[in-house]
């Protein structure tokens, strides 16, 4: 009976309810913009679907699928392959590759696309060299793959996106209990396929889901290469036919893709919790490779770094030397400062919110809450501009309520809380990149030994104590990894920042864009290089924190 409860017990009961409430509220705020987008999509599209179905829709869907499959294959090969090599083996340059493999994450795909196009197209140095060498006169005399194509888009996206899989797979390989490997060895099994891969599967799939969402929502690269994906279609319908409703409806199709992806991820996570709490746990010993294999491994690690980082950086550097465009360094310094501030603030918000939703729903939540918090990270699946429209509608609703509320008191409240401030930008970042922090933390949680938690409860520790003393220290690396990925993502983010920012607020991405938009690659090169350079900060952090992690 309630009346017989002591005050402490009552307090405990209330606090449990609050624990439950937090992820519900946070997830609701995150999902708000998505719901607003659904409401927009529920309008009347004026019979446009017949036309779309007969002309372009199937092409959009097929291209999107091809792009996703192509990128996934390359990302898996290089992301998982390199992570396995650097965590299990000693070979030439391993220490350097270990952190350099993260670098391509700092390069925005559309900028790499610009740099590559110039390099690989007909008048670029590669084809010119081939023509001179073989004496070909013009394009009719030989075949060269066209860079502005589906294949080109797959190439560019794969080599800037594989780090998502690399980071999560690497963390997971390092944390896999070495006892499992020993058993695998005893039975003479291939330890990569029989132990490493199955153990890291949740992490790899979490990374791959992020990659696929990034591919679906990309606009810059597909626009530049004219690959007609769903996202490109959304913009043709919205701006070309002045039909926001149909555009929102197409983005819901893309959303369904992502729900399917998340479902796959969810399934792969279910009933798969691998952990080892035995005392014997030691860090896996690295195997030294013989010279030939060592060279091959080094080349295998070097290739994605070269394609995703070194080559684009070299090309941008060459371009930035070419221009005499006057650069005001004090303005640029200010923009760098803005970018780093807003990215840190965004990353911290994401980490706080995704940790609380992930941890509470994982340990305390019902099935429904779990699904709901999963759903709250689907903002990642929408093209940035479409999600920002959801954010705008959502914020407009809040602002109107706020202003009419304030008018009851002061009578001349003119502006809302959110519109045109940095807060709306932060809301958008969290709604979009929540998946990055959430995915990383969820996959970290699956590797926390359950019996440690049980032991903690048995010793009479409360959930809060268990959380701070056991869970958080154990998933620290996952939190940091998620936070740093989110930082890099926000720093590169363009469409939402462009649309939602306050007056006179520039980040490196928006500043670069005004030039890149006009294909003025020389002027765009320097700020683009600075985006990449600032992206190195989290990579260096990551290196410091994640090196030789111990469980």
């Amino acid at each position, binding site marked *: 009976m309630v009346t017989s409860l002591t005050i402490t017990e009552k307090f405990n009961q209330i606090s449990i309810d609050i624990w439950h409430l937090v992820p519900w509220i946070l997830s609701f705020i995150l999902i708000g913009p998505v719901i607003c987008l659904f409401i927009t999509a529920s309008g009347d599209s004026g019979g446009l679907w017949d036309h779309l179905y007969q002309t372009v829709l199937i092409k959009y869907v097929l291209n999107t699928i091809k792009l996703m499959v192509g990128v996934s294959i390359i990302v898996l090969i290089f992301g998982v392959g390199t992570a396995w090599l650097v965590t299990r083996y000693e070979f030439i340059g391993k220490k350097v590759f270990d952190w350099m493999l993260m670098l391509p994450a700092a390069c925005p795909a559309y900028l790499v696309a610009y740099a590559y196009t110039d390099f690989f197209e007909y008048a670029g140095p590669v084809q010119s060299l081939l023509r001179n060498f073989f004496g070909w006169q013009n394009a009719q005399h030989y075949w060269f793959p066209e860079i502005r194509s589906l294949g080109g888009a797959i190439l560019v996206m794969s080599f800037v996106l594989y780090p998502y899989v690399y980071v999560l797979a690497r963390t997971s390989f390092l944390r896999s209990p070495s006892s499992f490997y020993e058993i695998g060895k005893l039975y003479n099994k291939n330890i990569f396929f029989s132990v490493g891969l199955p153990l890291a599967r949740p992490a790899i799939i979490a990374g791959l889901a992020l990659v696929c969402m990034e591919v679906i929502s990309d606009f810059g690269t597909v626009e530049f290469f004219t690959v007609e994906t769903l996202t490109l279609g959304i913009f043709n319908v919205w*701006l070309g*036919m002045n039909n926001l409703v149909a555009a929102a409806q197409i983005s819901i199709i893309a959303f369904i893709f992502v729900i399917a992806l998340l479902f796959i991820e969810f399934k792969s996570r279910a009933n798969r919790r691998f952990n080892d709490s035995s005392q014997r746990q030691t860090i896996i010993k690295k195997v030294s490779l013989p010279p030939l294999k060592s060279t091959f491994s080094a080349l295998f690690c070097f290739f994605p770094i070269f394609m995703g980082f070194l080559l684009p950086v070299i090309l941008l550097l060459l371009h930035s030397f070419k221009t005499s465009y006057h650069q005001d360094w004090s303005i640029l310094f200010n923009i760098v400062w803005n970018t780093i501030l807003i990215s840190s603030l965004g990353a911290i918000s994401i980490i706080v919110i995704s940790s609380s939703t992930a941890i509470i729903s994982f340990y305390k939540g019902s099935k429904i809450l779990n699904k709901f918090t999963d759903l709250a990270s689907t903002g990642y699946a929408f093209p940035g501009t479409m999600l920002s429209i959801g954010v705008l509608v959502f914020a407009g609703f809040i*602002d109107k309520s706020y202003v009419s509320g304030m008018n009851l008191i002061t009578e001349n409240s003119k502006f809302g809380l959110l519109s045109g401030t*940095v807060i709306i930008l932060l809301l958008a970042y969290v709604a979009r990149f929540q998946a990055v922090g959430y995915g990383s933390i969820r996959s970290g949680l699956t590797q926390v030994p359950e019996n440690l938690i049980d032991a903690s409860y048995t010793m009479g520790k409360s959930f809060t104590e268990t959380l701070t003393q056991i869970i958080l220290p154990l998933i620290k690396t996952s939190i940091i990894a998620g936070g740093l990925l989110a930082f890099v993502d926000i720093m590169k983010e363009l469409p939402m920042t462009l649309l939602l920012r306050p*007056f006179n607020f520039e980040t490196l991405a928006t500043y670069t864009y005004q030039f890149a938009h006009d294909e003025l690659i020389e002027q765009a090169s320097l700020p683009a290089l600075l985006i990449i350079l600032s992206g190195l900060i989290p990579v260096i952090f990551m290196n410091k924190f994640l090196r030789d992690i111990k469980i």
Partner: protein
Amino acid sequence: MKLIQFLIITVLYILSFGHASFSSEVNIYSHRQPFLINPFLEAFTNKTGIKTNVVYSTKGLAQRLKSEGENSPADLVLTVDIGRLYIYEDNKLLLPIESKILTENIPSHLRSPQNTWFGLSKRARVIVVSKDRVNPSQIERIEDLANPEWRGRICSRPGSHVYNRALMASIIAANGESKAEKWAKSFVENLARRPQGNDRAQVKAIFEGQCDVAIINNYYFGKLKYSEDPQQREWAKNVNLIFPNQQNNDRGAHVNISGGGVAKFSKNKENAIKLLEFLSSEAAQNLYGKINFEYPANPNISPSEELISWGKPREDKIPIIKIAELAPNAQRIIDRVGW
């Protein structure tokens, strides 16, 4: 603790970007890049002492204005392409304004019938051809690009880009929908490669010998001709410029506009109107040609000498709003023919 201190300072700094509202300001939502619009705004501030604040985005600003509703801090909208201006009007986001200066400076076919938006500069869609491989007299009209002699010789930006969509709309307006679709179909059959790249890239493709003919906005020719990059100057040297549809009884070359209008819930209405008036005045109208090789919308101002040296094109004087109204039909044709 240091982290918390850092956070507090950061938040305070960053909130300082929020909306402040002084009387001597004008807040602009711009679809034009800052590096193009800033010289105008600086001139305006120097003249009037009114400070300008800008958010630049290529897409979605109309939606932002709409969602913000009465609480919006925006005073003025500046865009390129008539289609975007029309979206603002269509969503009833613009204020009808009475300004004698504006109605005198801007001819009626370049502004809205309700005086909600005003064209401020014009850009012509022109044809460029290879100097070595094409005799310029072979092409007189945009319609000629559908002729079979150009099979495999034309390069183009994707049809769904605003400039091509507007051009398509102008052809619908002139010839009717079925003729326009037939033209588009033959035009696409004549393409040398999948539509790709921007207008610059088409001139480059002619230079490289991938094709002989392309359609571009006139100002790209100027940007290439005076580029800092010697290579780009070579591309421009390699082509001749043709203003299409110039014969006596023809309609003239298709033009698009950049323009602006005052936001419906503007809190600095007078300043916003002042800025629009300034942009239509002689000083600013001259700048359009000087900075971006665009034609002045104000008929009393003559185009820059550089522009005159390219020829004196006659423009298609169809009310520009027609182009925006026909844009969805144009996009449908573009989808059907796969441009």
